[in-house]
């Protein structure tokens, strides 16, 4: 009876066809490709306006119904799997790019706007949005920025970080709130405020537990007029550390990352399609197997961009500085890869649309990453920790995909170590899961900082941060006293 009343009230808010309780559909929302335990919602509500969201949240407070905010559901880490049933608040139909401002270089997006949609729209006007490497193109830009997915330009302090400008959100009590210039209801275009702070950052990394973002201003910039890719091969990880530090210290290039042969080969495998669903279909590829043999174990990839003014002069002096530095460091630098035709062309295209990295999902269908931040000088130790564990668990070392992205000129490194397994093979899944769990905890013991603690990482991290956790819990109960928003996530377990 209770459920029926709730459904009717939701239908009154969102329209009959937008409230769904069909078991088959609910099941789709109950799991993703991650190891996060499945959890079924009671209903899915498609909303299309801020007012509807406010009404749903107010109703949820009245009826003590959990609400899981859902923008595109493509985070692949279980962040939208409801732990305690309730509603999936599906905003994927809020797909409007509300503004593209080419004078002050920002775009305003709704939660359903995807990277592909925004990048395609912007590039037609000569602009681009910064995109994380290997992101699902149908991923919501808003939720991805909110979850602090680091973009490929993150090595650059100026262009790669803090890309969020103004935000609009619905607080857990259903009240509207705006940050940045928007806070006074006028024109957007700046991040700080209201009252002289950077409060928008509170909602980042929050997995929808503290508020529901309904609009976001993001920085955009003109498409580079030219781009030049450089490849620096390394036989082992430790050799790459000093060059990364030196190159980043000189602030050369915008994009820069270190990638191992497994992940790089996947990008170049023509036989593989970019998957659209996750877990993906498994597809064996001799081309991939060959490429990963041919490629050096590690490749540092750097992109030097040419701006609109004096394009060539800029790329020339930056290239010269890079080559001079490589000379001093006695390392080889290439503008192409000998065994992969047009690798530099493929890579340059990836800077704008880095979807090809997703081809790695073809290998076994699902990818379980260990995603964390670490200081540069800890990388070799962390790599070794994982290798030792993989060996102990009988997981092939050659099947670990690795992507390492310097942040803010290598103050920190965003690390993604991938383990692959066939989603439908229960035994393999259990085995890989055991390795993944043990590796998570061992890496944390060795200084890997999981700043976005999804699924089981939450307990591992929050148990080591008692004061921070207790303040977060107090905050949650102060602003979401009914624990409506995405209960159970992070340290907000239901007691």
């Amino acid at each position: 009876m209770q459920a029926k009343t709730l459904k009717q009230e939701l239908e009154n808010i969102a329209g009959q066809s937008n409230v769904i309780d069909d078991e088959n559909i609910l099941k789709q929302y109950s799991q993703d490709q991650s190891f996060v335990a499945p959890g079924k919602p009671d209903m899915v509500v498609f909303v299309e306006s801020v007012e509807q969201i406010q009404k749903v949240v107010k109703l949820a407070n009245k009826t003590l119904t959990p609400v899981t905010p859902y923008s595109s559901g493509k985070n692949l880490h279980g962040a939208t799997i409801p732990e305690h049933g309730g509603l999936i608040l599906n905003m994927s139909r809020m797909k409007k790019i509300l503004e593209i401002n080419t004078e002050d270089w920002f775009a305003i997006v709704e939660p359903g706007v995807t990277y592909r949609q925004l990048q395609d729209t912007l590039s037609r006007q000569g602009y681009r949005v910064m995109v994380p490497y290997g992101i699902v193109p149908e991923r919501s830009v808003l939720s991805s920025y909110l979850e602090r997915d680091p973009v490929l330009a993150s090595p650059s302090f100026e262009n790669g970080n803090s890309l969020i400008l103004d935000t609009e959100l619905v607080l857990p009590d259903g009240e509207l709130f705006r940050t940045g210039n928007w806070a006074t209801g006028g024109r957007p275009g700046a991040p700080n405020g209201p009252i002289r702070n950077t409060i928008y950052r509170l909602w980042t990394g929050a997995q929808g537990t503290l508020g529901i973002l309904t609009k976001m201003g993001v920085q955009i910039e003109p498409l580079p007029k030219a781009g030049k890719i450089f490849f620096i091969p390394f036989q082992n990880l430790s050799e790459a550390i000093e060059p990364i530090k030196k190159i980043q210290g000189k602030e050369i290039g915008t994009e820069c990352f270190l990638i191992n042969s497994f992940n790089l080969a996947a990008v170049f495998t023509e036989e593989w399609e970019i998957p659209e669903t996750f877990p993906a279909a498994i597809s064996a590829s001799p081309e991939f197997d060959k490429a990963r043999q041919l490629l050096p174990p590690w490749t540092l990839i750097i992109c030097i961009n040419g701006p609109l003014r004096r394009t060539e002069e800029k790329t020339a002096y930056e290239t010269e500085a890079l080559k001079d530095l490589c000379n001093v460091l006695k390392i080889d630098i290439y503008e192409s890869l000998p065994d992969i035709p047009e690798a530099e062309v493929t890579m340059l295209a990836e800077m704008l649309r880095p979807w090809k990295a997703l081809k790695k999902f073809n290998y076994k269908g699902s990818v379980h990453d260990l995603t964390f931040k670490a200081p540069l000088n800890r990388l070799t130790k962390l790599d070794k920790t994982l290798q030792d564990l993989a060996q102990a668990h009988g997981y092939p070392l050659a099947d670990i995909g690795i992507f390492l992205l310097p942040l803010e000129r290598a103050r920190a490194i965003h690390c993604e170590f991938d383990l692959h397994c066939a989603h439908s093979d229960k035994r393999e899944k259990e085995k890989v899961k055991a390795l993944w769990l043990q590796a998570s905890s061992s890496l944390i013991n060795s200084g890997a900082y999981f700043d976005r603690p999804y699924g089981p990482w939450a307990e591992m991290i929050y148990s080591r941060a008692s004061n921070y956790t207790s303040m977060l819990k107090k905050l949650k109960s102060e602003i979401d006293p009914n624990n409506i928003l995405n209960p159970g996530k992070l340290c907000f377990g239901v007691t």
Partner: protein
Amino acid sequence: MQRNNKRSIPAKLTPEVYKALEDIVGTEYVSEDRAVVECYSKFSVDSSGALKKHAKDPSNIPACIVLPANTREVQAVVHVCNRFKVQFIAFSNGMISFSGPTTPEPTVCVHTSRMNRVLEIDENNLTARLEAFADYAQLQADAMKRGLWNGGSPLATTLCKLSSQSAFAGIWQTDHKYGTLSRNIVSIKLVTPTGDILITGSDTVSGMDTFWEYGPGPDLFSLVRGSGGTTGIITEIVVKLHTWPGGPELPEPEAGRPCIQTYTEAKYDTGSPPKHHKPLWVEFPDFETELKALAEIGHAGIGIGLNATGVYNSYYCSQTQEMTLERVKEKFFPPYNCYLILSAIISEKQIDYEEKVCRDIIKEVGGTFLSETYKPEVLDALAPWNLDFVRHVTGFRMNRHAYGASIILGGPITTVAHKTREVWTKSIDTFGETYITDRGGMDDTPFLYSSNHNGRFWLTEADAYPDMTNPELLQKSQALVTSGIVNTIAHQYGPGANGLGVSIEPVTSFFPEVGPNAHHLFRKIRNLFDPNGLCAPGRQVFSKTEYDNFPDDVLADLNKMRQMHGLSTIKKEK
């Protein structure tokens, strides 16, 4: 003026509380001596505090000063304050308004001056760990020896502490590349108002290095930044370091850079730019050309600092107040201008390239470079900026007559620059100026700071400079700023949102338009950190009690101001 014969008697702590504080820090480091506490009662940019002095209202005078030596002692002091329900406030230099207690209750002033060390420069993680009282100058001196620096310093001078700036502002001359201080903090250690320790960033998770600013999960630092001290006392701060190509030491003039009133010769504050740096100064024929050029240079992504300086040049670059006034009168400095700081981080060719780009833009847009052949005497006079953009010294000259209050707006350049000029002009037209230099921003450019590398958003500033000995002028300066801010909010614009609105933040509680109702959320946050309502009373946002006790006559005045700018009057929420 009538003489006020009232005696000003500050509130006192009970002997029990005083003894408890002595037990923590020792008798040497706590004082309620009238001569001492008075020193902690007069601040910069604090018209309302100065008015209290005129009214012999003692509520700006703390009951005692306590100087803890470390975090543990700060914690113990806070515990005592909680046990006895005594209010307390952190204090660094007192260079900004609202530093003193704003209620008549006896207040403990926690001066962090004994915690003044740079604890670590970490070349691996590009961070520096500082105690609460370590300042920009100390940090830069240590970091530059290792080819690193923190990215900037405020005009309030490098004597400012990074800890108090993070609780308050942190606007630098080089925000263009490095952003404000808020973009440069990796971690803080905070003694919360209840005496707990809160650490932010990766540092909060045991076993982690101090290298990453976010999380775990939601970012609690965002609640401390800009809180005006209401979230507790920062005892340590870890900031980011960036590449510094300028050499291990700054080319300081031989006699140092004293910036003391009696040193009237330019040589004392004039040095050459640091190595591998080049400032360019441009004069524009009018405001529109200036804005166009700034927008274009901003978009070109060149340089590390990009700002327009208005009346400020006449203060910072003039060694005496007479010189300042003369130069204002003569319009000695170009009223529309900008400076761009170039830095050779990648290679020396970076400066060549960026200078060419700047010159291309000026050619397209209009404007003239100050040079040896065009107004060399002006370029010469501007020389204090050669070093001040890095390690600011001469900014304090703004205080020479008296820097009473500011409006600071934020946002995209075209709108924000015009809005500042518009609201400030309306304020001055309505209430009149307190001093000739209040006209800065009307007759010339407001101060414009690029706060984003591609010039997406900017901060602007216009100020009032009332004679602090004249209460009427102080009141006028308050009216100027309040009117400016109310007007800005009425236009659905900035200070409530992005700028500072110096001296008015808690009053935002009476502007439901901001947020909307930002005060509801902020009050919850204040309550979360400080359930006993003891820490930094009357700042950032009013607690429920402070809100309820807000004087009705002041609210009536505020409502008049609201009406004047087309906003409806408001009543206190019950």
